[in-house]
């Protein structure tokens, strides 16, 4: 059976280049990262095994010094005397979640644009190109542009607000407005891009006869939108949502790095940024790895919850 054995041999030859790279740059690093997360390692001295210390340092709480814990009620309400060991982590987790508030707005805008784009109007390709421009522009350039737009004294945005008599905030140096600024910039650069195209493709995939049947049933435009378009798009919406949430949890570094350097006072530092700081600024590889694994588990959990509960509401297109 020489030629049959040949097939297996050829198969191994074909996957070999990719597999070697996959092992070296994905699989082994994943395992290594888990090990590193149990060490303390600054890359200068050899790594030291520290058990769960990194994780405790991140998630742990300690008693505040002045807690006396005299009576049993003190023990019952002990949480009052606890303080997180790493307040930064909780703040950055909150920031990461806050920045994800942009996701639903982005999805609605993308859907809206896709619906307009789906009308066979003259010159629609021109508009589509224009809407797509921000998403393929280098984020470094876009971030610079928006830093200029957000400039509190000379920026475009406050100048425009000034026209209608509003005193604009100092966008990037206020803890809350800085986050909102990042969300707005994200919306601007993202709404006309990939998600819009996905929605457009999905819209074009809805069979016309469904709308015709609805016409015969006497449905108006709103009915049709609510009972045909939205349900038929739900697989796409589901897909976009999951991908955005996964992206949101592990993102936020680049725009924050370019716009605010994570400031003011860590107000725009996300988990990804925090990992970057730990790994490549402070060289505490162990803690950075522990954070990365935490991120991994969160994403795993979100995905599983999404599939379990989100999946039921999704209407899959019949064949």
């Amino acid at each position, binding site marked *: *059976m020489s*030629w049959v054995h040949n097939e297996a041999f050829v198969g191994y030859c074909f996957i070999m280049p990719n597999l070697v790279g996959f092992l070296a740059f994905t699989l082994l690093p994943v395992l290594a990262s888990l090990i590193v997360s149990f060490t303390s390692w600054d890359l200068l001295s050899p790594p030291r095994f520290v058990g769960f210390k990194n994780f405790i340092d991140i998630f742990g709480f300690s008693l505040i010094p002045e807690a006396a814990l005299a009576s049993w009620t003190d023990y019952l309400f002990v949480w009052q005397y606890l303080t997180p060991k790493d307040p930064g982590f909780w703040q950055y987790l909150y920031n990461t979640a806050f920045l994800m508030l942009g996701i639903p707005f982005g999805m609605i805008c993308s859907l809206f644009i896709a619906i307009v784009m789906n009308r066979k109007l003259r010159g629609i390709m021109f508009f589509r190109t224009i809407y797509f421009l921000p998403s393929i522009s280098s984020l470094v350039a876009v971030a610079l542009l928006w830093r200029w737009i957000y400039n509190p004294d000379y920026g475009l945005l406050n100048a425009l607000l000034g026209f209608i008599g509003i005193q604009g905030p100092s966008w990037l140096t206020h803890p809350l407005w800085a986050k909102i600024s990042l969300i707005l910039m994200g919306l601007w650069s993202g709404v006309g891009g990939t998600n819009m195209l996905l929605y457009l493709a999905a819209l074009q995939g809805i069979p016309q006869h469904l709308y015709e049947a609805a016409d015969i049933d006497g449905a108006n435009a709103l009915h049709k939108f609510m009972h045909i378009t939205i349900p038929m798009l739900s697989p796409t919406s589901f897909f976009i949502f999951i991908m955005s949430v996964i992206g949101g949890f592990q993102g936020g570094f680049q725009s924050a790095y370019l716009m605010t350097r994570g400031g003011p006072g860590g107000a725009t530092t996300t988990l990804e940024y925090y990992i970057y700081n730990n790994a490549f600024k402070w060289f505490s590889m162990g803690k950075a790895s522990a954070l990365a694994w935490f991120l991994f588990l969160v994403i795993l959990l979100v995905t599983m919850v999404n599939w379990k509960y989100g999946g039921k509401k999704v209407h899959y297109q019949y064949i």
Partner: protein
Amino acid sequence: MARVILQNVWKRFGDAEIVKDFSLEVPDKEFCVLVGPSGCGKSTTLRMVAGLEEVTAGDIIIGDRRVNDLPPKDRDIAMVFQNYALYPHMTVYENMAFGLKLKKFSDPEISMRVKEAAEILGIAHLLDRKPKQLSGGQRQRVAVGRAIVRKPKVFLFDEPLSNLDAKLRVQMRAELKKMHERLQSTIIYVTHDQTEAMTMGDRICIMKDGSIQQVDNPLSVYEKPDNRFVGGFIGSPPMNFMEAEVIVRGEECFLNEGMFEIAVRRRYKDNVMPYVNKKLILGIRPEDIHDKLSFTLNLKEGNVMSGMVDVVEPLGSEIFLHVNTGKNEIICRVDAHSKVQPNNIIELVVDTRKIHLFEAETGCSILQ
């Protein structure tokens, strides 16, 4: 010298037995058709001959060589696929020349062979086109052409006509037959369509669940099916089957369906006698049941059944009636000018020379 012999060939995928103990000898120059319902293992058998599937057990011999371990290219065969399998990125010429190029034929030789085959098939004007630009029938011809240019010992066809429309299929059927006569090559042809099998094959091999049911020439298969499956599979509309009890009355033997009786001819009596008072499966082809009014041959009392007409299907040249006898729904063929209407009561006569009898349990014919 291009006979194909399969000796006790088995094919298993894990626990599933796809082909079971398959033995068949296809002599040189024969057009042999493997026919059976989908999933009966006919395509797998063909693919084992081609070398696309491994043989689990048994031997395959092409010419005088055992080819079990030879790759397809060294078996001296050509194959035509159901979906034509033309390379979409090559022109018709390149498609036909590809195999020859790989065999390192000289360019003039390739060109000559391709042109010759294209002439035969009437596709000489299409050589520069891509498969996408061809109609279904043209693609079919190119696929055949690709096989012809190799001048193989054996042609293998895997349902080559099933993607064509009905009219084109009839035409291509005739053309393939002509081609076989002209090339004088051995052909193994797989189809699920019994009409194709009947019209094209020198011999037909009927398969079911991985086993051969019967191998014979088309007429024998039609007239003397070895078992109930073959009887039902070959012929359209299919043979009518009904349970009947064997009864002896005096010297005569009868088959009792419940609503009517048929006398057994004397020459079948010995076959039937072991089953007295037992059930047999009676098989009658639609054309062997006649309208009593137009049936003029020597009529015997007792071979008549009456039933209610459910459906009338006029085909122009003939009419098929679906008749309910009270126990069974049977189909019979009557004259095109019959005036029978649905819900009429009709009297039908069975041509007792043409009946088929099968054992109830095994389905084996007891008349052969």
